[in-house]
């Protein structure tokens, strides 16, 4: 081995004095270059200024990059170490949602509901209840079937429960926590959430069924416009033309058919996070849900007032199913004209209730 390398080394090296001279020259040149380059770098270091260092050092993070982060944008090469995360770095719409909810929806929702209650109270004290103008004839007309009444009261109970639990979730913390203490408040708000989340879908399904079964009676007619122009005859003695449903009932129907459905749909988005909808979707669903629901709650107070305290003879239609002939004549004259031959006396009604005549269907034009 040793002999082999010994013999090979000279063969590689250049031979003769000329080559030695050449090598020496190269060495000198290299030394000169080295010294020169050292001098140059030394000068460069001495002249270094912050501006230059910033541009030559590893790229820093620029304000533009932070602006991009703040905007909530994510590029294709965005990575998140969290398992199955679909979140960007900054949830830019969170603050918008917070402002909309806290500064607009909650105070103005309260104002809408409170204002409606105050207006109704004022109306009641100034104008008062609408009594029947003529004495009751004692003859009855079937207005709501048992099925419709059951449906109405189930939906109504669910609506009130959802409204109260929803209001508790939005505004309860300002009242009940200080009033009752943490233990009771914790129980209250947890119960509110569970009731709201589990009863909501039932309400949604039943609302759709109710809307479908009442659509025929709620198709807008020309006389409904007149009804509105005359304020539904709520003030004064005059009566306005109305079919089975008057203009106000139709307005309430179509409000439920539009805003109500919107509230139900957005509620489903919020109630089923298992479909992996993002934060942004749920923020908007929440705002739509809250605005719609608060509006409906405010208007529902009007519906409740007119149906109970506000009008003599209206509530019995939805409790017993039957209304008095006079009531029908005064409030739904067009319907009355169509079905006036179907009236029954109170004795007949009592017999019908005691007997087994099956389930009668509401008086409808034949």
């Amino acid at each position: 081995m040793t002999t082999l390398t010994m013999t090979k080394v000279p063969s590689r090296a250049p031979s003769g004095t000329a080559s030695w001279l050449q090598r020496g020259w190269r060495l000198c040149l290299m030394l000169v270059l080295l010294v020169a380059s050292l001098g140059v770098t030394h000068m460069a270091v001495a002249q270094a200024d912050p501006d230059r260092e910033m541009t030559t050092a590893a790229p820093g993070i620029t304000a533009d990059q932070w602006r991009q982060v703040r905007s909530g944008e994510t590029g294709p090469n965005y990575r998140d170490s969290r398992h199955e995360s679909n979140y960007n770095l900054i949830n830019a719409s969170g603050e918008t949602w917070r402002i909309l909810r806290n500064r607009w929806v909650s105070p103005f929702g309260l104002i809408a509901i409170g204002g409606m209650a105050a207006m109704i109270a004022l109306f009641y004290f100034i104008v008062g209840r609408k009594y029947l103008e003529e004495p009751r004839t004692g003859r009855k007309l079937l207005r709501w079937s048992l099925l419709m009444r059951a449906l109405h009261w189930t939906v109504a109970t669910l609506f009130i429960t959802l409204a109260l639990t929803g209001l508790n979730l939005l505004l309860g913390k300002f009242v009940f926590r200080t009033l009752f203490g943490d233990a009771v408040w914790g129980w209250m708000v947890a119960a509110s959430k569970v009731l709201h989340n589990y009863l909501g879908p039932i309400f949604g399904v039943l609302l759709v069924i109710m809307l479908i079964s009442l659509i025929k009676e709620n198709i807008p007619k020309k006389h409904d416009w007149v009804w509105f122009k005359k304020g539904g005859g709520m003030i004064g003695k005059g009566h306005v033309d109305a079919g089975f449903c008057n203009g106000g009932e139709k307005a309430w129907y179509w409000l439920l058919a539009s805003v109500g459905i919107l509230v139900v749909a957005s509620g489903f988005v919020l109630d089923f996070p298992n479909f992996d909808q993002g934060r942004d979707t749920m923020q908007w669903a929440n705002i739509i849900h809250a605005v719609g629901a608060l509006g409906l709650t405010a208007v529902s107070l009007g519906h409740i007032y007119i149906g109970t305290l506000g009008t003599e003879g209206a509530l019995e239609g939805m409790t017993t199913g039957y209304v008095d002939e006079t009531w029908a004549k005064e409030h739904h004259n067009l319907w009355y004209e169509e079905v006036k031959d179907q009236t029954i006396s109170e004795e007949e009604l009592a017999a019908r209730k005691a007997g087994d005549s099956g389930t009668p269907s509401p008086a409808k034009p034949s």
Partner: protein
Amino acid sequence: MAQMKFMCDAERCIECNGCVTACKNANDVEWGIQRRRVVTLNDGEADEMSISVACMHCDDAPCMAVCPTDCFYKTDDGIVLHDKDLCIGCGYCLYACPFGAPQFPQQDAFGERGKMDKCTFCAGGPAETKEEEYQKYGSNRIAEGKLPLCAEMCSTKALLAGDAQDVADIFRQRVVHRGHKDGAWSNNPQASTDNLAYDAARKG
């Protein structure tokens, strides 16, 4: 009283996920929940940057403002904590949080999310006993005079935790060292290079 803050120096973060691991270990966090995450922007490109994020313990915390049960509170050290006994898992804190900090153990139908969990700045939470506190919220290192483990473990000291003033001072020194003009106080060309007391509000 201190104002506790996290700060991640994105020019130092090397996306090792040590903070994530340290946090999970220190707080025995539930399976599926990761209180801290590391986000990488422009991964694989020349301007790639990583940053470790968790609850930033905001001064004006959006979670606190929107919580229907009012379960959040701020400690004297400026740490945002929450009471899991009051939490109903509605998810509103998650909608509002700028940093995606609140997480839920479940994501089931009828809004069944379980109790929200988030970074506590290693300061535990409200509980009767120490065991209960650990089981619900993880360790309370602040009570032991220690800083959050994520920042303590950070290998490049990219992640800083502590009083806002101290964290800011450390970071400013770094920025100055990196060669920012104006002593890192501003980008204002009027500010002189050496005047660290430059007041941007005062003209001239």
